[in-house]
């Protein structure tokens, strides 16, 4: 695995962590709120997060007889790499998109 390749599960985990962290920050703001904030009685939910990742997929699987799950890795393409590759590079890139939604906060409404 080259230095820029990361297991796809780790990439997605980062996305999940980012959503939860954002929500925790919003919760903290709501709990800290007092008279100085104009929206003091309100709380907020990260309703939906859409993330689109552009990069290169690769897969690794052992050649043994045993049934072994392959591992997918993902290498994000940075802006410099994308520009150097030109239009041909786009055809070689993969796109992973994940939407994460908040579901029915029990105290909403």
């Amino acid at each position, binding site marked *: 695995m080259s230095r820029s390749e990361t297991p*796809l*599960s780790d990439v*997605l*985990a980062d*996305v*999940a*962590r980012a*959503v*939860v962290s954002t*929500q*925790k920050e*919003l*919760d903290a703001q*709501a*709990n800290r709120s007092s008279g100085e904030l104009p929206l003091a009685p309100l*709380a907020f*939910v*990260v309703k*939906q997060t859409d993330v689109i990742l552009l990069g*290169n*997929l*690769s*897969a690794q*699987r052992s*050649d043994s*007889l*045993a*049934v072994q*799950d*392959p*591992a*997918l890795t993902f290498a994000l393409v940075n802006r410099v790499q994308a520009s150097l*590759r030109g239009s*041909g*590079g786009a*055809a*070689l*890139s*993969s*796109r*992973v*998109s*994940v*939407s*994460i*939604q*908040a*579901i*029915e*906060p*029990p*105290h909403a409404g």
Partner: protein
Amino acid sequence: MPAKRRAVPKPSIAGRAQETVVTAKGTLPERKKLPAADFFSALQRNLDAVQRQLSSANNAFADFVVKEFKIEAAVQMNLNELGVLQLVPADDTMSPQSVSRVSLTLAAVAKMTDEAPPKDMLRADATALADLTWLPPRLVAQLAQYEVKTAGEFLGLVADARFSTQIASLLKVQRADIGRWANQMRLLDLPGMTVQEVRVLGDLGIYTVTDLATLGEKAIVDLQRRASKTLTKETLVKWREAAKQALL
């Protein structure tokens, strides 16, 4: 604002898959080939992992769920001699003209518990061919070279009569043997049936679910007598009833 955590629906594949143009020709890099089924199951596992992480996140205010997951993968495609679709993720060494795109959209839906298949029904799908002691090891090795490594994959292959003939020719085995092995694998779908028990039944001349379902009382007594160390009459009767249910 503390809130009691609730179970969140686990995402399952309920989306649509499009496999676009197969443009790859010639030999693909051998080490990088990945059966399409493995590619999709790897995606499923990654998605399960992110959903597990979301549902276990210690966040009191809101629960989160993966609403949709899309992937447009740049891959080279190949069909091997046994018809197994293989994918090779694109890299910089490939010409863009040789690369196809596989587009897959997964949507999260709540699982209906009463629709979930019994755990035992999945055994044949997951059982490695290498674990099936009644299969010749040489055959297992040959099938592995064609990316056929589980009973489920083997059954999927032989379900298509065209490939059954092709397998017999490629692997130099008899079609009748292929049919018998497939039938023995289907026995694994009976609740509680193990690989070892299928082998014992095979030694007794029982190869199919129908063979089991049609056992008479006298035959059961006879079988039990011949394999008294491993089979009881109650077990045989239980399997016969399960086999009858499977044939309904």
